[in-house]
């Protein structure tokens, strides 16, 4: 109650001072006050940087929902594996799973620009075309606005020049992906799109061999499934600097050196020089 009173005071003060900007000020003023009262929330990334994230909080006293690495900022331990998840939706071949036992973390939350795509620019009623026309040669024209928002687009590293935007994104509903029939697919179910080409991976993912699931390990238990794009950046899946389909990461600290040892140079020595 006391806090509320302070906020009201602050808001009232701002409102009287600059009436025209009162709405903006009200939103801006309480934020620092709240930050000062509560500690800065710890947010850590889950699989790769730039994909799903999780905010640290306590489930019950002394038990956090997640522990984050102080070195790399990666999620290191899950207290609650299902936090912030929604049911995965229909997936072929997974019908035998009990209702609600396959959950995913919605990607749409993270993709902040996504709701805008279909309404602001790619609404199908743009100034240039109605209905929109797409380049006949299926080559994306350089688009500085788009590249500024999604830097990976400048140099698309997927398909080795043999695919373009509209092979994955829906033509008129840009906040959706597209399947083989041209039907829209949610960003939360990228597996329906990726499996078009990567069928072997989809099969392994469905059986839990490829990719990652957390929660209950029994075959019919409730699991949070990590979807394709939580681990792979679809605009940059091939990169010469690494040798796997996964982006490079900073490793966690190395183990303690044996007693009396100053460094681990002995590990670099080979019995036979080469």
């Amino acid at each position, binding site marked *: 109650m006391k806090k509320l009173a302070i906020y009201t005071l602050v808001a009232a003060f701002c409102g009287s001072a600059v009436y025209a900007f009162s709405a903006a000020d009200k939103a801006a003023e309480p934020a620092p006050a709240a930050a000062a009262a509560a500690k800065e929330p710890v947010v850590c990334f889950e699989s790769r940087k730039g994909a799903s994230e999780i905010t640290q909080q306590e489930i019950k006293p002394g038990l956090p929902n997640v522990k984050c690495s102080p070195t790399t900022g990666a999620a290191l331990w899950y207290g609650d594996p299902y936090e912030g998840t929604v049911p995965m939706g229909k997936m072929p071949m997974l019908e035998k799973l009990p209702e609600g036992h396959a959950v995913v973390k919605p990607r749409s939350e993270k993709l902040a620009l996504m709701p805008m795509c279909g309404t602001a620019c790619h609404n199908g009623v743009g100034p240039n075309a109605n209905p929109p026309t797409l380049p006949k040669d299926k080559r994306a024209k350089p688009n500085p606005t788009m590249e500024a928002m999604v830097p990976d687009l400048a140099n698309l590293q997927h398909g080795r020049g043999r695919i373009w935007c509209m092979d994955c994104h829906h033509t008129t509903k840009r906040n959706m992906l597209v399947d083989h029939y041209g039907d829209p697919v949610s960003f939360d179910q990228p597996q329906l799109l990726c499996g078009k080409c990567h069928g072997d991976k989809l099969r392994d993912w469905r059986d839990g061999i490829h990719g*990652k699931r957390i929660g209950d*390990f029994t*075959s019919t238990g409730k699991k949070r499934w990590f979807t394709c794009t939580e681990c792979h950046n679809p605009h940059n899946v091939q990169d010469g600097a690494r*040798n*796997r389909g*996964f982006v490079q*990461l900073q490793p966690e600290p190395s183990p303690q*050196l044996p007693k009396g040892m100053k460094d681990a140079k002995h590990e670099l020595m080979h019995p036979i020089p080469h």
Partner: protein
Amino acid sequence: MTIKETPQACPAKEHPPACTTPASADPAASAPKTSRRDFLKAGGMLSLSSLMGTAALMTQSDDAEAAAEWGEHFQKNYRLMTDAEKAEARLRLERRYSQEYGKQVTVDTTDAQPGVLMGYALNIRKCIGCRRCVHACVAENNQSRGTRPGEKIEWIQVLRMERGEFSKDKMGHGYPEGLGIQVGGNAYTPAGQVLEGQYHYAPEAVPEKDATYMPIACMQCEKPPCVKVCPVRTTYREADGPVVIDYNWCIGCRMCMGACPYWARRINLTTPVLPKEEMNPVTHYLGNRPRMRGVVEKCHWCLQRTRHDRYPACVEVCPVGARKFGNLLDPESEVSKILERKNVFRLKAELNTFPKFFYFYD
């Protein structure tokens, strides 16, 4: 005793030859007890009951630590404990840990569930060597995390191995040096040699192009050499697979550490350093409850989680999904699917330890 008692059981005047037979091993046929024995027995019972009375008094004292220590002196090997004794031990430990760590700590004693045989699989091609599993394990399993020698314990080791290469300029290398006639030069380039791997690698970013990574922890063998050598039988294989340790019965002799071919076991040479705020309050008796000084510990596949159907901590944090866990008796589980479909190997299979930890690759 037997010789003394026999004349009383068998009067000499009736059947002298029968009396030469030794006393029967059958308890029903035992000789009648002497009054001296009764006296000793009564005395023993008296002293025992007085001891137990003291124990009862001690366990009711306010100091949970002292009560637990006192109780532990009279505790049996976990496998021999009755359900009531297990419940008592559990209560004692919960009180002790809750007081010590300043939060509500639970000590689970759930037994192996029928129809479950735990199995683990690791995709050796996917591992990027980020060591997140190592630190997840520490966060989950209450290992010692001090900074002085021997105070930092990690159960998982990630081994970095160089990729081998065959190059033209090395054609002349090899034994004898400069000629390379006997082994052909290039054959001496490392190509994933385990014993020359690195544990302490620290590059800016992983995976490195010229390296592969191999995480190693307890393999939960079906024929565990560590169990064979344990002189106090404190380490044993549970019915659902994992090899566990009753820390209270461990004498710290480290025979198991010598016997393990996978370098999986660690000893608390010092008093474990476990900060209160980092302590995981969800524990299992045979799993991650805080250990004491001088006992051996190792991976137990997060019994406190897996007995309640939750994935182990290392599986949950692996960012590339290289770690897989499941029930080997369930043909639909991920591990069963991997064994059915992928190329699988066991580490040091030639030792006939039959690990339930499988390495595989796509």
